[in-house]
C-alpha cells in the first residue's frame, strides 16, 4: 500500500509538532523518519497510524483519503518503542490477539490461529517462548514479540516508533539487519522513526530528515549523507568540523588555505561557515597545508581519530580527523607532532542559518 501525506499539520497547544508536511511513500518502501527529539517524527508516524488526528492536511492510503479512518480499519501494524505488550497474556496470546479479536466471520479457526502464531514466532526466532510471559523475556525478545504481534494481522503498512531505541547496541545492530531482511522477504511498506542516523542509513531505502516539524531533506541515504542541503542535515548525519570562512582581498580562506577556486558560495562579504567531515581532512607532512599539532590520538577499531589543533584556531576547539588503521600503522602519529592539514571536501553554508 502506498501512503501520501498532503499538507499535514498538528499543534499541541502552542507547540507546532509538525507543519505542512508533504511526503510520498511508495508501496514496498522502507523509509526512515530521522530527526532530533521533538522534531515531530513520532507525531507524524502516529498520524499515519490514526493514533493522532492532524489539525490540517490529508493522509492518503492508496490514493484514498484515510485522514479520519478509525485506527482499527487502517490495517497498519504499529511497533512501539516500549513494546506495549499485554502483560497478562503469554507470548502466544499476545501474538494471537489480533486474530482473536477479528469479527466472527473473518476470524480464522483456532487451529489456523495456532499454526499462524507458531510460524510467526518461528519467524522472530521465538518459537520456544509461546508459553512465557513478557516479563520473563529480555528487551530484544519483547520487541520481537511486538513485531510478530503486529505482523499477525497481515498489515499493509508496518510503522515502527524507535523500535530499537531501548535496546543495547549489540542487540540493536542484530535487529536492524533482521528487520531489513524481513522487509525484503515480506514486501510490506514500512516507515520507522529513529534519532540514530546510523540506524537510518543502515536500514532505510529513503531517509526523511525532520527538524522542528518540517522536512529538511528527503533522499536515499548516500545522497542525504554526501549532499546535505542544509547545515542542519549535515550536522545531524554524522560528525562534522566547523570552520569559519574568512575573506581577504576578495578571496575566501579556510585558515591559510585559499578555497575561492573550489567554492561557488561565499566570496562576498557575508559570513559563511564550512562543514567538513572528519574523513575529509587529510593529515600530511608538517610543511604542507595548514600547520597543526596533534593533541590526541584514539584508535577505534578500524579507524583512528586524531584531534588536531590548527594554527590560529582556539585551542579548546580542536578539529577531528579520521584516518584508516592501515595508514596509522604506517605513519604512527603521536601527540605533539606537527602536521599539515588539507581538506578533500567541504561544504559552505551561510553562518546565519547555521545556528540551529
Amino acid at each position: 500500500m502506498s501512503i501520501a501525506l498532503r499538507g499535514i499539520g498538528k499543534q499541541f497547544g502552542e507547540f507546532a509538532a509538525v507543519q505542512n508536511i508533504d511526503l510520498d511513500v511508495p508501496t514496498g518502501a522502507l523509509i526512515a523518519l530521522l530527526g532530533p527529539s521533538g522534531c515531530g517524527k513520532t507525531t507524524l508516524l502516529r498520524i499515519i497510524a490514526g493514533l493522532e488526528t492532524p489539525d490540517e492536511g490529508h493522509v492518503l492510503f492508496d490514493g484514498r483519503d484515510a485522514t479520519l479512518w478509525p485506527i482499527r480499519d487502517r490495517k497498519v501494524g504499529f511497533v512501539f518503542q516500549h513494546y506495549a505488550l499485554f502483560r497478562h497474556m503469554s507470548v502466544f496470546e499476545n501474538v494471537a490477539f489480533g486474530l482473536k479479536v477479528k469479527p466472527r466471520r473473518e476470524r480464522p479457526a483456532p487451529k489456523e490461529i495456532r499454526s499462524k502464531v507458531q510460524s510467526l514466532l518461528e519467524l522472530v526466532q521465538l518459537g520456544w517462548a509461546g508459553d512465557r510471559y513478557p516479563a520473563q523475556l529480555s528487551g530484544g525478545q519483547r520487541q520481537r514479540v511486538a513485531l510478530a504481534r503486529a505482523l499477525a494481522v497481515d498489515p499493509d503498512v508496518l510503522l515502527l516508533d524507535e523500535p530499537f531505541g531501548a535496546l543495547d547496541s549489540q542487540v540493536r545492530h542484530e535487529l536492524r539487519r533482521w528487520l531489513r531482511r524481513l522487509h525484503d522477504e515480506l514486501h510490506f511498506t514500512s516507515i520507522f522513526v529513529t534519532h540514530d542516523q546510523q540506524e537510518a542509513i543502515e536500514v532505510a531505502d529513503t531517509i526523511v530528515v525532520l527538524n522542528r516539524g518540517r522536512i529538511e531533506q528527503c533522499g536515499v541515504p548516500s545522497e542525504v549523507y554526501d549532499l546535505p542541503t542544509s547545515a542542519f542535515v549535515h550536522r545531524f548525519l554524522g560528525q562534522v568540523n566547523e570552520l569559519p570562512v574568512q575573506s581577504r582581498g576578495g578571496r575566501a580562506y579556510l585558515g591559510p588555505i585559499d578555497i575561492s577556486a573550489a567554492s561557488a558560495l561565499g566570496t562576498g562579504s557575508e559570513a559563511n561557515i564550512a562543514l567538513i567531515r572528519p574523513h575529509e581532512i587529510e593529515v600530511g607532512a608538517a610543511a604542507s597545508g595548514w600547520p597543526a599539532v596533534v593533541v590526541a590520538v584514539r584508535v577505534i577499531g578500524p579507524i583512528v581519530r586524531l584531534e588536531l589543533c590548527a594554527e590560529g584556531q582556539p585551542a579548546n576547539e580542536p578539529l577531528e580527523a579520521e584516518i584508516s588503521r592501515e595508514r596509522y600503522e604506517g605513519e604512527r602519529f603521536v601527540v605533539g607532532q606537527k602536521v599539515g592539514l588539507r581538506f578533500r571536501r567541504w561544504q559552505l553554508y551561510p553562518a546565519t542559518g547555521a545556528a540551529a
Partner: protein
Amino acid sequence: MAAPAAAFEVKTLSPPPPPRRARGVLPGFGLTLGYTMVYLSLLVLIPLSAVFIRSLGLGWGHFYEVVTAPRVVASLRLSFGASLIAALINVIFGLIVAWVLVRYTFPFKRLVDAMVDLPFALPTAVAGIALTALYAPNGWLGKWLLPLGIKVAFTPLGIVVALTFIGLPFVVRTLQPVLEDLDREVEQAAATLGASAAQSFVRVIMPALWPALLTGFALAFARAVGEYGSVIFIAGNMPMKSEIAPLLIVTKLEQYDYAGATAIAVVMLVLSFGLMLGINALQHWALSRHGGR
C-alpha cells in the same frame, strides 16, 4: 594441573564459611518485624481473642443456640447479603467514577475528586440521617419513588443504599492509582491490531484492573459488614426484616447479655475473616497470571 588441585584442597580443609545472608539496602528486618507483631497484637489480636474468650463462657450448646436463633440468622444474612450487594454496586460504579476522574478533564474536577472522600470523613450518623431524610416516604427522592412502588427508607433496600454510600471511596481510591498507571500505548496497540473499544476494555484493560478491583471490593465489603451508624437510621430496624447484625450486638449489650453479643461477634469475625482470606487468594491468583511478577 597439580598446583591448582592442591590449592583447592587447602580450601576444603578450612571450615566452611557461615552462609551469607542476602542484605537489603535498608537494614532492620528483625526490628520492624518485631514492631509489626507487637503492634498487631496490641491492636488486633488481643482484643479479638478477648471476644473469642468471652463467648466461650457460653459453652458450646448455648453458643449454638444463640447464633442459630432465627432473629440472629436473619440479621447475619441481611448484614452479609446487603454488604455483598453494596460492594458489587460499588465495584461497577466506583470503576466508572475512577475512570472518569483519571481519564478526563472537566470543570471542578478537583472538587468532584474531593467529594469522593466525603463518606470517609462524614460521621456515619450524619450520612444515615441525610439519606433517611432523602429517601423517607415524604423525602425529596422518596416521594417520587413511592408511587412507583419502591420503598427505600426502613427497608433492606435502604440498608443497601447506606452501605453503598460508605463503601464508594474504597473502590475509587484503590482503582485510581492503577488506572493512572495503565499504559495508554497498550490500548493503542490493541486498537492497531483491530480490537474494538469493547474488546480493548474486556481483554486488555480489565485484566490489569482485576487485582485492584478485588481489593476495592474487599475493603468496601468489609467496611459495609461492620457499618453501624448510617444504617440504623435508614433501616427501620425491624427484627427479622431490617435489623443488621451489629445492631443486634448493641441490643444484646444494652440488655447486659455480653456473652450473647460476643457470640454473634465471633460468627461475624469468622465469616469476615474467611471471606477476606478467600478474596486474598483470588487476588494472588489474579496477580500470579502476569508471569514472574
